[in-house]
Each structure stands twice: as structure tokens, then as C-alpha cells.
């Protein structure tokens, strides 16, 4: 762990009235740094929080946003819950498989993209909805998905859209 990261984590800890509240924010910070919650990240969080690695594992495994393996540089979370299904989420997933060779749960061979089907993203009126690196993209028709992914493949950043 770099000194800067350690200091950042210590400042998170200091921000809460009870240090225990810092665990999830610290795990977010470690995941943002390492790409996913690596075994090393679990050890580091445990040490910072004065917990056992098993206790940290228990928390990590509860939450779907904590990943245990490498994701693509752009991690795409497609909602396929009720409202998005009514507006073409399945077609979107099928299109990502066909045109972009993306399968849920896996990263593309070049490491650029990974795909995950997720539960409702609380944006059901703008369906189908997806997030790229937790930034929202709304009304994702296959054509629009091609534009977004194409832009990212060409070096754009995932900025998301404003509602």
C-alpha cells in the first residue's frame, strides 16, 4: 500500500464518529485503486480496521459492488429487472453478446470491457439502463450502445449522462 493510499484510508477513518463505519468506504477506496478487492486489499483493510481478514471477507461477500476478480477497464452493468425488461434489456444484452462478444460475468480478452447483469438501478423510467464504471447511460438502444462502447474503445472516458 502506498503511503498516499494509507493516509487517504486513515482520513476516512477519522471522518466517522465510530471508526467501524469506515470499512465500506475504505473497501471502495482499495477497490478503486486495485481494480477489485484483491486478497491483499482484504489484508490491508483488516489491518487498517483492526479486524481479522475473515471479518472483512464477511462484509465484502455481502455486497454486490465489491468484485473479487479483475474487471474490464470499462465495467458495464446492464439492468435486466422488470421495467428495463419491458423496454428491451434482453435485446440489449443479446446485442452486446453478438456485436461486442460480451458475456455476463466475463471480461473481453483485451481487458477493455466486462459485462454484468444487475438488479434495478433506480432509473426505470429511462430504460433500458446501464452503468459504465458506475456512471449512468439511459435509453440504451443497441444503436446507442454501439456509440457509447465505440467511443470508449476509441479512448473516451466513461462520463455517463445527466438525467
Amino acid at each position, binding site marked *: 500500500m502506498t503511503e498516499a493510499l494509507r493516509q487517504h484510508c486513515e482520513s476516512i477513518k477519522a471522518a466517522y464518529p465510530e471508526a467501524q*463505519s469506515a470499512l465500506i468506504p475504505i473497501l471502495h477506496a482499495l477497490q478503486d485503486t486495485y481494480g477489485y478487492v484483491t486478497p491483499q486489499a482484504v489484508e490491508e483493510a483488516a489491518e487498517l480496521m483492526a479486524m481479522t481478514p475473515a471479518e472483512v471477507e464477511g462484509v465484502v461477500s455481502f455486497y454486490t459492488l465489491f468484485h473479487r476478480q479483475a474487471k474490464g477497464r470499462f465495467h458495464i452493468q446492464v439492468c*435486466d429487472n422488470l*421495467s428495463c425488461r*419491458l423496454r428491451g434489456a434482453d435485446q440489449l444484452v443479446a446485442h452486446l453478446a453478438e456485436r461486442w462478444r460480451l458475456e455476463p460475468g466475463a471480461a473481453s480478452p483485451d481487458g477493455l470491457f466486462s459485462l454484468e447483469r444487475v438488479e434495478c438501478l*433506480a*432509473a*426505470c423510467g429511462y430504460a433500458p439502463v446501464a*452503468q459504465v464504471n458506475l456512471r449512468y447511460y439511459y435509453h440504451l438502444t443497441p444503436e446507442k450502445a454501439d456509440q457509447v462502447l465505440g467511443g470508449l474503445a476509441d479512448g473516451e472516458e466513461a462520463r455517463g449522462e445527466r438525467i
Partner: protein
Amino acid sequence: MSESKVLLANADVAGIESLAVYERHGGYRALKKGITQMTAAEVAQAVLDSGLRGRGGAGFPTGRKWSFLPNDGRPRILVCNADEGEPGTFKDHYLIHRLPHLLVEGMILSAYAIGAPRAFIYLRGEFLQGYELLEQAMAEATAAGYLGEHILGTDYALDLQLYRGAGAYICGEETALLDSLEGRRGIPRMKPPFPATAGLYGLPTVVNNVETLCAVVPIVEHGGAWFKSMGTEKSPGTKIYSMSGSLQRPGNYEFEMGVKLSDLIEAAGGLLPGRSFKAVVPGGASAAYLTGEHIDIAMDYDTLAQSGTMLGSGGVIVLDDSVCIVSFTRRAMEFFRHESCGKCTPCREGTLWMDQVLSRLELGQGTEADLNLLLDLSDNIAGRTFCAFGDAAVAMVASSVRLFRQEYVDHFTHQGCPLLRERVG
């Protein structure tokens, strides 16, 4: 009936997420009134008088909830529940992303009213953009003297903090949320004690939904009686209805409580071209279906409860005639199976079992006995689980079997979905 925009009055104003534009449209006027001209007790009284009921799903009167805080000298905490994850619901998402200052203003006023020196906004982990917008809004509010030490030159100080969860629907349940905010797995707590007596860090805590806290702003500005004059007697005020599904203009629409379902559908542009109405889930995936018979039903807490469903979070999902109820219901159960926290057996095992039964029914491999099994399982889950998730998980299924039994039967007599066959040709 036309829209009555109160919370969303300025939602479409360009740049409203910035302090300058928000102030130009009357922003922080209520805060000035509340903090410099009213006592905390007067602000709380206005909320009590307004009859405002919690917008997170349960509809508990907000003023009464606040009055349960014990007067024992311990510091109090206000927590905003921004974990919105109920399928079909996207009003908090809209409020946070469009009107971050409205939530900040509502938080400060509410914390003042209950005498809390500390408050948290618990955002679902996916609201990263919302987190950044709120961070910005809080920094602006602090610089303007609305937040932090000596708010508006008074002795009132508030430490407001943002917190991002990490993906778990159950963390919307207020006690699971508190556990998550304390850095643990989000598992519901035993009640009592209620958060009002032992909440975050064991301190007296109020948990309120985003929309509830936003509503405090116009209530303080215009008075409790004004709010109460809108809506119905038992469900006063306006409500943001999240309209999604087979509609031409899905989106958030704010109406007085008790608006007719048909008016909401009309506001959202009506059904998609060439489609007709089949059913509606009126309060997120935790609510039982209604059919065309109820197309003019008044969308308030009591009327919907009397009809065997609920207003819940106000997430209205409209289904057209091309939608297969069996498949749709199965998908809802997959959600609940996935999100069950696993603490109690009826919910953990029951949702798994119901998902399996619904899956075979969808594939046309079910039997008549399966339909009774679904109703049986529903009965054994509803009311028998540790938290309200269990009731929520079975509402759509149980009502689907009652309202659409023939559609289930058609699946096993045709060995598959008749609607799908029709479409594929």
C-alpha cells in the same frame, strides 16, 4: 387532473443543481425562515400538522415518527435513506440528480427540527454521480453559511456526511441500513428497540426517505395546513409517481395524492402505440398487481391498501397486452431470491423454492398443483419473516395466481408461453 409540481417545481430549470440558480428560484428561503424565525419545535409542529407520511414505502406519519425520540439528553442522528432499489422506483434518483440542494435543505431543516447535530445521507453504492452532486451541493451550502458551524449566524451546527453503500437491496430496510452504515453486512435488526431509541451507534435516530425530507422544505415555507389542503384527508400532499413500463412518456410525475391511475397513465403519454392495458404494479415490485377493473383507482395509501395492494414507494409499472405475466412474475421472484439477506428460513428458502416453481411454470413444465403450492408458500412467508421483505417478496406472485390463473394454466397446457408462440409465429 393536471400535475401539481411542488417538489419538482424547478426540476427542469437549467443549472438548478448549482446554488446560485437554486437560490434564484427560491432555494434556501425555507431554511432561512425555519432556522431564523422558527424554533425547532415549531418546525417539527409544521411537519406534524402537514400530515406528511413517509415516502419510503411504509407511509408512517413523519411528524409522529420524530415525536418518538426520547428526551434523554443523548445526541440525536438523522439518516436519509437514499438506497432506492425497489424495482420500478426512480424518484429519489431523480431528486438527487436534479435537485441536490433540495435534499440538502430538507436535511438541514429536518435535523434542526429534531435537534440533531449529526446527519448522514446513505446512498446506494451505484449513486456515484449523485454522491458527487451532493458533495458539490454541500460544499456550496457550507460556503454560503447554510451548513456546518453557526448556520445562518445562529448557534445551530450540523455535521452532514455522505455515505455510499455497496450494492444490496435489503440495505433499504432501515435497520439493515444502520448496520451497513456501521460497517457491517446489511442484516435487519430486531425491533424493538426502534431506531428512535437505539439507532445508529445505539443513539436515538430518525431514518427518513429522500422524498420525505425534500417535502419538509415546502412544508416549512408554506405551512403544514397548506400541505394538508392537498391530496386526500389521510394521505395529504403531493407525491412523486415513478411511471415506467409500456408507456409513451415514462418518467416521474408529481400529482396530489389520490390522483387516478388513469390520469397518471395519461400524463405519461398513455400506452405504447398499438398496445392495450393489461395490468399494473402500483407500488414497486413489492406490491400486488391490479387489472383494468381498477384503472380509475385513487393512488393513495389507504385506497390501494383496501384493494389488496399498496402505494409503497410510488413506482408504477404498466404492463401491456404483450407481456407474459408468468415470465414477468418469475423475474420479480428472481430479484427477491437474489436479494434475500438469508437471515430467516421462510424468506431464504421460500424465495428460492418459489423461483424454482415459477421457472418450471414459465417453461410450460408446471402443473395445477404448482399453482396451489405458490399460494401455499406465499401464505407461509407473508407475515412470518423477520422483516417486511418477506411480505414484499410474495405480493406479486400471490396476486398473479389469483388474477391470471388462466395464463398459468395456458403455460402448462401449451407447454410454454402462448404469447411468445404468437409473437414468434
